[in-house]
C-alpha cells in the first residue's frame, strides 16, 4: 500500500502527461446534512494530471462531493459522510489520517476569491509558513515567487508584493488564491466554481491557467458553465439530485451522452 503511494507521488512529481491512474477514488459516498441526504452512493474516480469537471444543476451535490475530497465538510457540524474516499489508495476518512496533512495535499480554491486581509506576499507565504516548508527567509521568497509565477500573477504584482491582497481586482484575487493553494505544493487542487464571480476576460485567464496547471496537478473543478467544462476538462461527471448520472471523457459527454438527463442538461433543456 505504502509503496504504491510513493510510486504514485513520484509519477505526479515527474508529471507524466498521459498517466491516467486514479489519483482519488470515491466509492459509494453518501453525505447527510442533519437528516437530509445530499449525496447517494456516488462512486467516481479522479484521474491523475487531468481536469475533472463536475456539472449539474444547482443543489445536485457536486460541491458537496468536492468538499468531501479534502474533508472540508468536517467544518460543518451537522455534516456526516459514509462510504470510502481514497487518495493514492489511502482512505482519507481513516481516523489515522491527519486532516491538516490531507488538506496540505488536497488544496482548494473557492467560488468567491477570499484572500486574507494581509499583503500579497503574506497571502502566498501563509501555507508554507504554517507547514514549515521554508527554512530560510530566501526559501520563502523563492516559494512565493514561483507560486505567483505558476498562477500567472507574478508580473502583475511583482512591484507591490507588500500591498494588501484585497486591493487586487477580482480576477487577480482569484489567481492569488490559486497561487496561495499552489504554494504548499498540493497534489490535487479542488476548485469550486472558481470563475463564477469573475468577468469573461478574467475567466479566460483563469481557464488558461487551469490548463497549464494540469501538467503538475490533478484538478477537480465544479462549474455551472457547460462551455467551461468543455474547454478545460478531460473528464466530466454529471450530477443530478445527489446522484451521479453519468461520467466519462468530456468529448463523449458533450457529443454523445448516454443518459437523457445529461443530454437535456447540456442542451439547456433544464437546470
Amino acid at each position, binding site marked *: 500500500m505504502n509503496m504504491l503511494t510513493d510510486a504514485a507521488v513520484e509519477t505526479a512529481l515527474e508529471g507524466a502527461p498521459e498517466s491516467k491512474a486514479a489519483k482519488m477514488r470515491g466509492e459509494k459516498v453518501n453525505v447527510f446534512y442533519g437528516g437530509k441526504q445530499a449525496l447517494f452512493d456516488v462512486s467516481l474516480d479522479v484521474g491523475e494530471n487531468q481536469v475533472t469537471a463536475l456539472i449539474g444543476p444547482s443543489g445536485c451535490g457536486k460541491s458537496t462531493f468536492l468538499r468531501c475530497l*479534502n474533508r*472540508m465538510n468536517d*467544518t460543518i*457540524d451537522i455534516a456526516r459522510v459514509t462510504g470510502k474516499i481514497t487518495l493514492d489508495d489511502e482512505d482519507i476518512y481513516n481516523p489515522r489520517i491527519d486532516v*491538516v*496533512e*490531507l*488538506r*496540505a495535499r488536497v*488544496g*482548494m480554491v*473557492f467560488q*468567491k476569491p*477570499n*484572500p*486574507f*486581509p*494581509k499583503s500579497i506576499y503574506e497571502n502566498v507565504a*501563509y*501555507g508554507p*509558513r*504554517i*507547514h514549515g516548508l521554508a527554512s530560510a527567509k530566501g526559501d520563502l521568497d523563492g516559494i512565493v515567487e514561483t507560486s505567483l509565477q505558476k498562477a500567472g500573477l507574478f508580473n502583475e504584482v511583482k512591484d507591490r508584493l507588500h500591498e494588501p491582497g484585497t486591493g487586487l481586482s477580482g480576477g487577480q484575487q482569484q489567481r492569488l*488564491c490559486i497561487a*496561495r*493553494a499552489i504554494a*504548499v505544493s498540493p497534489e490535487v487542487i479542488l476548485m469550486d466554481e472558481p470563475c463564477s464571480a469573475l468577468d469573461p476576460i478574467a475567466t479566460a485567464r483563469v481557464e488558461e491557467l487551469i490548463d497549464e496547471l494540469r501538467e503538475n496537478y490533478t484538478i477537480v473543478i465544479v462549474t455551472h458553465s457547460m462551455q467551461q467544462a468543455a474547454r478545460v476538462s478531460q473528464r466530466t461527471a454529471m450530477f443530478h439530485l445527489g446522484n451521479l448520472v453519468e461520467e466519462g471523457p468530456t468529448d463523449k459527454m458533450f457529443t454523445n451522452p448516454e443518459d437523457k438527463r445529461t443530454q437535456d442538461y447540456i442542451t439547456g433543456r433544464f437546470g
Partner: protein
Amino acid sequence: MTGYLFLAILVLSLIAFYTGRRTASQFVAAHRNDVHSRPIYHGAFAAVWVGLPALVLVLLWLLFQGSIIDRLLLASLPASLTEGASASRLSLYLSEIKNVASGRIFSEPSPEVSAAAERYQRWQMIAQWAMVVVALAVAALALYITRARMTARFRARQGFERTLDIVMILSAVAAVLVTIGIIISLTYEAIQFFRLVPPHEFFFGLNWEPQIAIREDQVAGTGAFGAVPVFTGTLLIATIALLVAVPIGLFSAIYLVEFANDRFRGIVKPILEILAGVPTVVYGFFAVLTVAPAIRQAGGLLGISISPNSALAAGGVMGIMIIPFISSLSDDALRAVPQSMRDGSFAMGATRAETITRVLLPAALPGIVGGILLAASRAIGETMIVVMAAGLTATLTANPLEGVTTVTVQIVTLLIGDTAFDNPKTLSAFALGLVLFVVTLCLNVLALRIVRRYREKYE
C-alpha cells in the same frame, strides 16, 4: 393648577385631532383622489399645532414667572431696606417674604415684609390665571386657524412631518447642549483653580495633600496640589483591571465564537453580559469584603505584607466588571470576519489555532482594540469600586500591593463635607474632573473611530 392646565391643553389637542381627522374624511368622501394628505395627517397636524405652541408658552411662562415676580417684589420694597444692600441680603429678604407668604413664620415679621408677602401672594395668583387664560386662548386660536386652513389640497402631511423634524432635531441637540454645558462648567471652575494653583504644579507636582482648611478654625495641612500620584494611581488600577480583563475577555470571545456549540453559547453569553449590569456598588462590596481580605491572607501566607486597600483588589474587581465590554466587542469583531476566511485557511491545512492567531485575530484586531480602549476609558472613569476599595492617600508607586488613590476617588472626597468655591481644595476637584473628562473623551473618540473604520471594511 398647572397640572390641570396641561390636561386642558392635552384635551384641546385631542379634540383638534379628532375633528381634524373627521373634517379630512369628509374631503375624502367629497373629492376622492384629489385629497392631498390622508385624514390621519390632518388630525395629527391640527393636534400638534394646537398643543405645541400652548405647551411651549406655558413652559416659558413658568421659567420666567419666578424671577420676574422676584424683581417686582424687590422693586416694591421700601427704598430704606434695599438701598445699598448686598445681593445675598436681598435674596434673604425674598426667602423671608416667601416663607411668610406660605405660612412658615418663625418670628413676628416686620410690617414691610408682611405687606410684601401679601403682594407676593396676590401677584402669584394673577400670574397663574393670566397664564391659564393666555395658554387656552392660544390653543383655541390655533384650533380655529388650523380648521380654517384645512382644505382638500392642504399639505397636512408635509406640515406634520416638518414639525416632527424640528422635534427630533431639538432632541438630538439637547444631548450635545448638555455636554457643552458640562464642559463649560468644568472649565470655568478649573480656570478658577489654576488661578490659585499654577498649572505646572498641578500637572507635574509629586505631592498631593489637598485637605486644607476651609474655615480659619479648622486644623488641617497647608496643602499640596501635585496631581501626578493621583494620575499614576488611576493608571495603576486601570492597568491591573485591563491585565485581568483583556486575556479573560479575549479568550472567552474566541472560545464562544470558534469553539463553543450553540447551546453553550446561548447560556454563557447572557451570563457574561449580566456582569455589565451588576451595580458597581455591589462590585465595591465584593472588592472590600471578599477580594481584599483574600489577597491579604494570601500575602500573609507568603510572608508579604499587603495594604488593606491594595490596588490589586480594586483593580482586579474592576477588571471583572469590564470583561463584558471586551468579550462582547471582540465577539462581534470575530464574528464579523467572513466564513470564507476560515474556509480559506482550513483549506490550506491550517489548524484551528493557526487560523485563529494568523487570520482571525489580525482581521478582527481593530474591533478588539476598539473594545479594549472603551473598556480602558470605563476603567479610568469608574468611581464606586475604587471609592470603596482603593485607598485615599496618594502614593507615588507602581507596587500593586500598596494602596493608591485615583482621580475619581479624590473628586468624591474633595466634594464631600465642607465646600467653598473660593478654595483650591474644592476647585481642584474640577481640575481633576476636567482632566478625566478629556482623557476618557479622547479614548472614546479613538475607540469609536477605530471600530467604525473596521466596520466599513467588511460590510
